[in-house]
């Protein structure tokens, strides 16, 4: 498929994933904050960190850590490239640009969500029933990804969409854990109510509350939660599951064409997967966990850069020409 359009597919799904996770995160935090007695800075500020927006946020709002200000910034602020409204706008631009590659069902969902947000109804619901507002966005995100699986031909565009979705998700889970790593200081059982609430919220942010209950018995320990979110192969948002799903899509993508494209992306992903396989089942706590998560976040980010360069940009015309010459005989037969 056209490199540029493959990029549109990849980014479309990344941004929809991002908008959905941000909505889930905001909704969970709204439920979490009133129930625990936390210092002001630990209430809403962690969300700004997850979004990677500390600097920009400080520039616009200084030390104002009021929940309303943070929610407004992460939901509506068009100066914030990770805000929900911006993610949806960029997703829609990618879909509009690549409509020939995106199913009509998916397009209509993104288009409807964008207009709902920007033409009034979304704003009204935000004011009157905010939980419902975030839930709607999350549901539209789920609808969108479901439509991708249900309405797209199982081919290259879908493979790029899934690649984008899973890489975004892997990075998101790792970042979420990293922001909370200080709540995993040791291997003691979770008995402190505040920490229990924090862990529960973290699981909820990863849609992992019920799955975790099904897999854990007795009083959970820190390592159980960490292992679950990092390594549980059956959890849709665990880092390990997302990277394996990404590998599946990458293999699929490479199967469509020349072996010469995608070697760097594949090498990075395989290295990351072996790294994870080695760590699996070992207790990781405290600062060691922070280092581990930083490594994961950075590696996923490098991986995205490699995909971008190898598949979408094709800046190197010389490579193109040499492949063209290699294919030349075949084309003329």
């Amino acid at each position, binding site marked *: *498929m*056209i*490199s*540029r*359009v*493959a990029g549109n597919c990849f980014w479309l799904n990344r941004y929809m994933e991002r908008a959905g996770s941000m909505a889930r995160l905001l909704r969970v935090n709204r439920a979490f904050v009133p129930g625990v007695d936390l210092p002001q800075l630990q209430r809403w500020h962690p969300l700004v960190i997850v979004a990677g927006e500390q600097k920009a946020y400080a520039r616009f709002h200084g030390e104002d850590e009021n929940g309303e200000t943070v929610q407004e910034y992460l939901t509506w602020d068009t100066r914030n490239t990770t805000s929900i409204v911006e993610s949806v706008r960029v997703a829609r*631009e990618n879909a*509009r*640009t*690549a*409509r*020939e590659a995106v199913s*009509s069902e998916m*397009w*209509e969902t993104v*288009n*409807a969500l964008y*207009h709902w947000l920007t033409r009034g109804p979304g704003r009204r619901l935000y004011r009157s029933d905010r939980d419902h507002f975030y839930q709607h966005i999350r549901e539209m995100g789920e609808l969108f990804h479901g439509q991708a699986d249900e309405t797209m031909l199982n081919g*290259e565009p879908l493979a*790029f969409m899934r690649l984008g979705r899973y890489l975004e998700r892997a990075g998101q889970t790792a970042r979420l854990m990293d922001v909370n790593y200080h709540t995993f200081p040791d291997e003691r059982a979770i008995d402190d109510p505040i920490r229990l609430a924090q862990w529960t919220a973290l699981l909820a942010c990863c849609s992992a509350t019920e799955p975790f209950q099904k897999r854990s018995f007795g009083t959970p320990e820190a390592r159980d939660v960490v292992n679950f979110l990092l390594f549980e192969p059956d959890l849709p948002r665990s880092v390990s599951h997302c990277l394996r799903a990404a590998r599946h899509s990458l293999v699929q*993508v490479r199967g*469509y*064409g*020349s072996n*010469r*494209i995608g070697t760097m992306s594949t090498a990075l992903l395989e290295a990351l997967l072996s790294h994870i396989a080695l760590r699996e089942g070992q207790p990781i706590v405290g600062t060691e966990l922070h280092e581990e998560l930083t490594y994961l976040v950075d590696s996923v980010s490098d991986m995205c850069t490699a995909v971008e360069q190898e*598949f*979408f940009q*094709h800046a190197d*015309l010389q490579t*193109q*020409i040499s*492949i*063209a*010459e290699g*294919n030349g005989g075949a*084309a003329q037969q």
Partner: protein
Amino acid sequence: MPSDFEQSVGLAGDTLLLEGYAPLPRTYDELYAADGKPREDVAELVSALDQLGRTEFMTRQKLAEGALFRGGVTFSVYSDSQGQEKIFPFDLIPRVIPSSHWDAIERGLKQRIAALNAFLCDVYGEQRIIKEERIPASLVHGSAGYLKEVSGIRPPKGVYVHIAGIDLIRGADGEFLVLEDNVRTPSGVSYVLENRLVMKRVFPDVFRRSRVRPVESYPKRLQAALLATSARPPHESRIVVLTPGPYNSAYFEHSFLARQMGCDLVEGSDLFVHEKRVYVKTTSGPEVVDVIYRRIDDDFLDPRVFREDSALGVPGLIEAYAAGNVSIANAPGNGVADNKAIYSFVPDMIRFYLDEEPILGQVETYICAEAKARDHVVDNLAKMVVKAVDGSGGYGMLFGPRASKEERESFRSQILANPDGYIAQHVVELSTCPTWVDGEAGPRRVDLRPFAVTGSDTWVMPGGLTRVALRAGSYVVNSSQGGGSKDTWVLEASSP
């Protein structure tokens, strides 16, 4: 929506849709005769619409607009990412053409396209028509659309006009006349297909009973025509649609056509030329491109040959084209056939190349380059429509009867300063069609852009884009200037 839904809706005291409709005097109306009664061949259909009533009609108009908006059938009003998008105003009252009228249009268009194609082949080849003095050389060579760079290049299969959107109007006597030839990159066909989809959803029963000829095969016909010009066999050929990009106002259409043909939509930077072959950059490396349906202007196609500053085109494209390795639709250089002074010679072309009499009439044209015609034009500006010869989209135009004295004066000096740049025509009383504006149906002027595609032969879509001037009394139907669109229903011939 099930069709009995429509039947179950009674008028229930509502006003008839078209009650009190009065056609304009001395103007042909598409649905109503001069006596104020529906025309006989469409009477049944008009009555079915009438029976819907106004409230129901407005409900359905809302449904239709919602469907177009949700589907993103929009054009962008400003050309940046924050720009507004609007739906092309769409009027639900169809414009109806009985089958007996359509046959002549279809034959007339095929004939005209054949002549224009022969003309392009000739002016970029032997130039017989100039040597035999049927058309002045200065007119051809002076036209902005004439590209000496493509002289001597013969396009694959000799097809220049793959896609034609020749504008027709209807004068007071009801005769269809050609107003303009559009054989560069005529747009609007996506609206025809999307409007039709909506009409079938909101008027299922009226539609079914009226026996409307289908338009849905357009993308397949276009694809077949494009493939017919490929140098490789169809199943090995790659077609792409070349767009200026997502901020172009017609991007929806470019994307729509690529989707409907199942081919890739590309921007200039997705393509490159190597050893006179065109390649597209794909995720698995470059692939050869055989046919380019381009929706960018000639000037921007190849910065090595035309505008150097063009970032939209593909360096080396014309060389690949000249080598016969890629087919470009429509052919570069077609602009000379759209020239409004050349237009007046099309009937002569039909006689010259085809040895036939023109089937479709056209509007009498004064070429200001000729002294006698120019004098007549400048003395009668208040009765004339003046057009720039290389203009399009309703720009660079003076509509004499509506223009202010200052505007007429300004055009008078422009014509005198650059007579070669202008032509003029007498005002034609464009036909009207009932159109829903501000809560009632009133007569509004319409034109018709039927679409024809040519590969190994020419196929004319039964119907086309009816554009309507939404302002009362206005003659300007262009979407950029307050125009809307209607679905065009060409009816099946009645069964024998």
